């Protein structure tokens, strides 16, 4: 059983993840802030994290840095519209050696499933 953590302050986004990943059989958890996300990550075990970039409180980049302090390997998909105000910070994090992928929004159901399966199952899975 693979576990997925979705960290996003927008309820609609959390909901869509739950709905669209339902058929994959993965177990999806959501957190509504960077702080809660880190707490959940520490307490659980996750194979993939979806992380929103623009959040109040700890934004996506700060959350990523904290996560990476705990776990350098877990795949993280940053969800962003690219012209995000935090995009520059993200580039910096990348330069600092923080590993992550970018999922460009808006994406539809099929794109999400493809991306998720791709990370969790490997290239042969889709």
């Amino acid at each position, binding site marked *: 059983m693979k576990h997925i953590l979705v960290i996003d302050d*927008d309820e609609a986004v959390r909901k*869509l993840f739950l709905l*669209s990943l339902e058929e994959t059989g993965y177990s999806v958890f959501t957190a509504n802030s960077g702080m809660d996300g880190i707490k959940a990550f520490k307490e659980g075990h996750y194979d993939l994290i979806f992380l929103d970039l623009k959040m109040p409180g700890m934004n996506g980049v700060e959350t990523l840095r904290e996560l990476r302090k705990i776990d350098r390997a877990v795949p993280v998909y940053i969800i962003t519209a690219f012209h995000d105000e935090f995009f520059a910070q993200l580039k910096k994090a990348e330069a600092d050696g923080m590993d992550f992928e970018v999922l460009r929004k*808006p*994406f*539809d159901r099929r794109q999400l499933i493809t991306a998720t399966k791709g990370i969790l199952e490997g290239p042969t899975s889709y």
Partner: protein
Amino acid sequence: MANKPTNVLLIEDNPGDARLIREMLVEAHWGRFKLECADRLSAGLGRLTEGGIDCVLLDLTLPDSTELDTFERVQAQAPELPIVIISGLGDETLAMKAVKKGAQDYLVKDHLGSHVLARTIRYAIERKRMEEELERYREHLEELVKQRTAELRRTNKALQAEIAERIRVEKDLKVSEVRYRRLFEAAQDGILILEAETGKIVDVNPFLIEMLGYPHEEFIGKRLWEIGLLKDIAANREAFRQLQERKYIRYEHLPLKVKDGKRRAVEFVSNAYRVDGKEVIQCNVRDISERIRDAEKLKGAHAHLTRQSAILAQQTKMSAIGTLVAGVAHELNNPLMAMLHFAQYCLNHIAEDDQTYTVLRDIEHEARRCIDIVKNLLTFSHSGDGKKEKYELKNPAEILARVLTLLSYRIEKEGVSVTSHVDEETPKIRIRVNAMQDAFLSLLTNALDALEERKTKAVRIDIRPDGDGVRVSIADSGSGISPKSLDNIYDPFFTTKPVGRGTGLGLSLCQGIIHAHGGEITCESGPGKGTVFHVVIPTQRRKGAKSNEAHFSDRRR
């Protein structure tokens, strides 16, 4: 002959002689004589003091006086009376002396006769009278001469004063003339002196000679319009006539043609005045070519500045709109995405023949549409943003060719005839390739859209050099843009396309890109006449607008 008796006083001490004389006078034909006698000098002198005597007959030898002394005393006593000496034969010398001293005549006793006596007395009186008159006259003359002399002296003094004044004035005049001449010669403006009556030039200063390049001789005696100085002869005769009337004329800007054919602009100020009783016109000519050039430069700089401000204002506006749009668009991203997923989820859980299936499909479709709109908006709002591509030197024809390729499917499908003409002198231009491609893509897409409902579908592309840049013209045979719309075509969100066919961002984005390259975009269009867009890009990348506005008329935007 006098009617009055003549009163004679005889001073004779000899009574015989006295009686003789008395008798003679009685006999005389020469009027009447009244004779009085005195036998000594003192008596005679006494009688004389009483007056009324016209003549004195005097014997010089008297008991109480001697010879000349007798005479002198009588003369002293009555200087105004004629004295005739009665002398003896041997006394003639003495008598002569007396005559020399002032006696009128002398008679010798022995030779006396009444006729002679009377006559002598008469003559003596007459002579005396005349002497007196002469004397008076002489005195009078002397007086006159004295007066005249005094007058002359005064006049002379006055004359001398006048001469001194004249000399002083002349000196001043000379100094003033030298001073004026110096001003005339040294002036750093041109000066012409004309005879007011005829308008002929009588003098010209060195500065003007140099300014205009004509030698001195060519000016003198001619009129201003005769030396080809001023462009319009008719206007100048008129001006001259005005000058004669009003005594003053001013041209603030007079174009002149100087001898070597060059043009000069001058300020021409003329006024008339009197000198030595004659009317004279002085013309001051100041070269204002530089002032004009500076004014033109200023005008040009001002026009440039105005254009720059307009562009800056536009850019600021666009930037503000961009920020607003970006904010809204970002906000919309999540909800739209969520809606899409929700619709898709439902679709995944419903049979295709369920009546709500199509509706859900519609929801999905509309959600996608919204997302597209938002995507366009974000592209628009970030068009100045983010990592800018580098400038490259490219032939514009290459860009257009690429765009035509991108649109080739649509061009063929819709049956549009596209012709291009590229001038072989067209230079390469420094551009951001992708951005410029987007701009032309937008313009060509618009052209294709305009042709959708048309019978004749033609697009003509023209690429040629323009000034120091390149002009790309894209013309379509569409139905044209109305004059009212023409004012708004570059406004963001302005569109004449039907709903769903365009956000109206194309042209404003296009204009932004072109301005960022230092270029200009204009449009010619009219209902039924089709539309042409002209894009001019300079070869060298330049910030802001071009300073040369000459290409664009008011009609175009």
